[in-house]
Structures are given as structure tokens and as C-alpha cells.
């Protein structure tokens, strides 16, 4: 079992080979929300072409870091700790900084109830990032 961290954490069945996290291709949607199709890496109606498909594989298994790299999302693996952290899509941040579209997110409130930015569409909002530190 390996923990995949993106905007949340999920545990997926995986084999560790050195610093490589190897998963069965059928578990890719659970791990990352994308799946490998003949036309490339796909999610909903979006597909990203994969130039070197063989480079994603070690034997029959997918190298998760190679998949995230193909999506232009860097990752950090700690095999000893059984964890891989994957960057969020950088195009969402660029959309925020250049096109001024607020990237969507979903986070829990202090009672654990999830909320999305979209809940407050139609209102003027101040996003106020703060911290205890």
C-alpha cells in the first residue's frame, strides 16, 4: 500500500521498486483520477497525448512518477515511508495568475464538512488565507 498525496491523501495498492511506485494500470483512476487509454492519459473529456508510452511502464505495471511527469506534474517519492506527493496541475495556477480565473478547490470546514468555492458563486468574496503560525 502506498499513500498518494495530491489535494487529498488516498491509499492505493502498489509495489515499490527502489524509488519507483509501480501500480496496476487499472488502479490509475483511483490513484490519480486519470486513466490510460489508446489516445493518451484521459480524465472526463480531456486527453493528454503520451509521446513515449513504453516509458510509463516497468513490465506490466505503471510507474506512477512517470505518469505524473507525462501530465507535467512533478512528484516526490519516499519509498521508505510509502508515499508519493504529486503537484497539482500548474495550468490552474497559471489560469489564476494570468487569466484571473479563481481555481476551484474543495476543503473541509472545522467540523469536517467539505465546501467548494463554487458554493459562493454569485457573491463577492474575500479569500483570506491565515494561519496559527
Amino acid at each position, binding site marked *: 500500500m502506498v499513500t498518494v498525496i495530491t489535494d487529498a491523501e488516498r491509499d492505493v495498492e502498489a509495489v515499490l521498486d527502489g524509488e519507483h511506485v509501480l501500480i496496476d494500470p487499472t488502479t490509475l483512476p483511483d490513484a490519480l483520477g486519470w486513466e490510460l487509454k489508446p489516445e493518451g492519459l484521459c480524465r472526463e473529456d480531456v486527453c493528454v497525448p503520451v509521446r513515449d508510452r513504453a516509458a510509463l511502464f516497468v513490465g506490466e505495471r505503471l510507474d506512477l512518477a512517470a505518469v505524473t511527469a507525462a501530465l507535467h506534474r512533478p*512528484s516526490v517519492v519516499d519509498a521508505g515511508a510509502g508515499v508519493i*506527493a504529486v503537484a497539482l496541475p500548474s495550468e490552474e495556477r497559471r489560469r489564476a*495568475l494570468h487569466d484571473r480565473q479563481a481555481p476551484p478547490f474543495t*476543503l473541509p470546514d472545522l467540523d469536517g464538512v467539505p465546501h467548494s468555492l463554487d458554493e459562493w458563486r454569485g457573491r*463577492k468574496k474575500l479569500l483570506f*488565507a491565515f494561519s496559527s503560525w
Partner: protein
Amino acid sequence: MVIGIAIDESVDDVRPWTDGIEFPVLIDQQHTVSELYAISNVPTVIWIDEDNRIVRPNGVAFGTDTVTAFTGIESKPHLDLIRDWVRNGAMPETANAAVEDLSDDEVLARLHFRVAAHARRAGDTETAAKHFARAGELAPHDWTIRRAAMPLTGEDPFGEAFFVMYQEWEEAGRPYHGIPGEQAGV
């Protein structure tokens, strides 16, 4: 309306700060919003309109004057700008200010931070310390990385470690992703 985003490890860390607060407060344990919006310090305020368009990007701003003696930033000019936007639709001068994208290292620092925080929650303090340190090396002037790691590694975020980071940050020219505090009221 205000939406509070607490860039904190646990609900228990946040609760002491939310007493009597009526607006929604969300907890961002994975620093998701800090990555999506390129936030490098708190407090950072972003104005977002009815259609979820960013009207005024990341900016240093305070709701009160409790830390004005240290920061030199007064709360009123920014609050006046907000009132003028809400009531009259007036855009501040800084509406189109550019926010620098995160560097590759600053993105990697966020990943190391997440691995470290995960390891810490699992009780693996050695792995946590290694990745917190790497995150700090990659983004030495990012407060959401280095200062956020202080309470998670047994350091006081208001003590010596803070002042060391503050001095380095000053010497580096006060890097910040967004509108600096001197322009809070502009």
C-alpha cells in the same frame, strides 16, 4: 463575504483563532490553496467576484491593527478599498498587479512539505525532519513552507527560528508572491 482558509495542520491549531468568527473557515492541511493561488505568506487576501474571477490578486492585508507596530501596515486603507468595491464596484489601482508564478523549486518544496507532514502524522519523525529540511532549502523565503514547518518540528514560529528566517527574508529583498504590504491600501 469572507472565506477563511487556515493553512494549518489540524483543527485544534485553528480553533483558538476562530472564536466568535461568523464567516466560513476551511482548513487547508495539504496547502492546496497555497499551491493553486501561489500564496507564500499569511495573511494574504484575494478578492473574487460573483463569477469567480480574481478582481484583486494575492495581497498582504490585515483586518485589524494588532500587529501594525511590527509590520507598519494599517488595516483601514485596505478595508476602505473593499467597501468601495462592494458598494460601488470600484476597482483598486492594484487590481491588475502581477503575481509571480511559483518556481519549480517552490512547487517541489510543497511536495516535500506534504511528505513530511504525512510522515509526522504517521509518527515517523526522522522522515518528517528530512523532508521538512529539504522543503526549507528549496523555498527558504516561503513562509507557508518554512514557518509552517516550525511548529511541526518543535520550533517556536514566534521565536528564534522566526527571527532568523525574517532576517534572511529581508536580506533577500522581502520576496512575496503578490502585492506587498506597503501597497495594502492601493
